[in-house]
């Protein structure tokens, strides 16, 4: 007869709930639960916690429903796409042109990232309202990740460990300095 210890029984918990545990293992787990108050308490607690999470999320999310306008837009776009779906050489040519444009735009964006705007540094685009952030660094940086952007604060992560001298956010044509806001790892 198969027996399980507390760890093994805990390991079975989720499959037991799903009813996907093989019969011999399920019986062993049930026997263990009957004889072990600590595991039984864990089993019960997981069940209660799960029910509480369900109740809490249901309650918090009850007001979120896909509105009629969103549905209409989805159906409209799908119908438009489906009407255009038959393959034609014109479509292939359009795809090729779009791909070429994308490649050119991508190359341009890449060059833009390396560009030193005016007083030197690299350019990154952040959230709406902050069209650009200029990073003035001792040397060009290799990779910049904007971790947080708000009108008050911009936090970036720079991966090649160069010191950032100054962070500037340009908003509506006005430059704002963010000295000391950079996080360098």
């Amino acid at each position, binding site marked *: 007869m198969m027996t399980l210890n507390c760890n093994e029984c805990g390991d079975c918990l*989720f499959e037991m709930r799903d009813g*996907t545990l093989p019969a011999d293992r399920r019986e062993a787990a049930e026997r263990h639960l009957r004889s072990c108050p600590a595991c039984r308490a864990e089993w019960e607690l997981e069940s209660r*916690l799960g029910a*509480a999470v369900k109740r809490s999320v249901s309650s918090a999310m009850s007001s*979120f429903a896909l509105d009629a306008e969103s549905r209409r837009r989805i159906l409209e776009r799908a119908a438009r796409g489906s009407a255009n779906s038959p393959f034609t050489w014109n479509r292939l040519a359009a795809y090729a042109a779009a791909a070429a444009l994308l490649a050119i735009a991508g190359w341009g964006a890449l060059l833009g990232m390396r560009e030193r705007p005016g007083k030197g540094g690299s350019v990154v685009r952040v959230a709406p309202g902050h069209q650009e952030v200029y990073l003035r660094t001792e040397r060009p940086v290799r990779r910049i990740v904007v971790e*947080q952007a708000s009108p008050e604060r911009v936090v970036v992560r720079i991966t090649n460990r160069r010191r950032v001298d100054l962070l500037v956010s340009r908003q509506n044509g006005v430059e704002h300095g963010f000295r000391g806001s950079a996080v360098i790892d």
Partner: protein
Amino acid sequence: MQESEIIQGLREGNPAALDPLLELHGDRLLRSAVLLGGDTEEARDLVQETVLQAFRSARRFRGESRLFTWLYGILRNLARGRARRSERLVYTDELPEVPVSGCRAGEGMDRDFDSRAIWRALQRLSDEHREVLVLRYFEELSMEELSACLDVPAGTVKSRLHYALREIRAYLPDAVNLFRSGDTY
């Protein structure tokens, strides 16, 4: 309309299949998008893109998972792609502040308190832990479905769930009594 009929309609490129799909999963996808992205407007966009992508790629859906699991996988990839593209992390405190049901006297009031405490605790969890708890207990996905949804092995899902349960318990105030109501998962 049954799920299998919806899938068949999608595979045939019939936009009429989207209506029952939205009826069945639209609200559910929106709630998932809110929980993944935090912004209601962006969540609506995400649902739109998810459904349209599902419509375009339905021929590749092999029917090995449930429709929602497949849709959730698309939604999750799109949400991650957007977060990467905007180079902006989604912070847990950006989740919508929503009232968790109204107050009622006695037992109901205690349950409301518990629900709010659990919602706040959920917001303090990492994205990974919050996601796995919501999918397991709110969406009621099995371990197999979780593994498919999150694109990780079953063992990883199990340990993630264990850690998530442990973490949320640590964030719950002592006043929360999970044994107050008779509900179990």
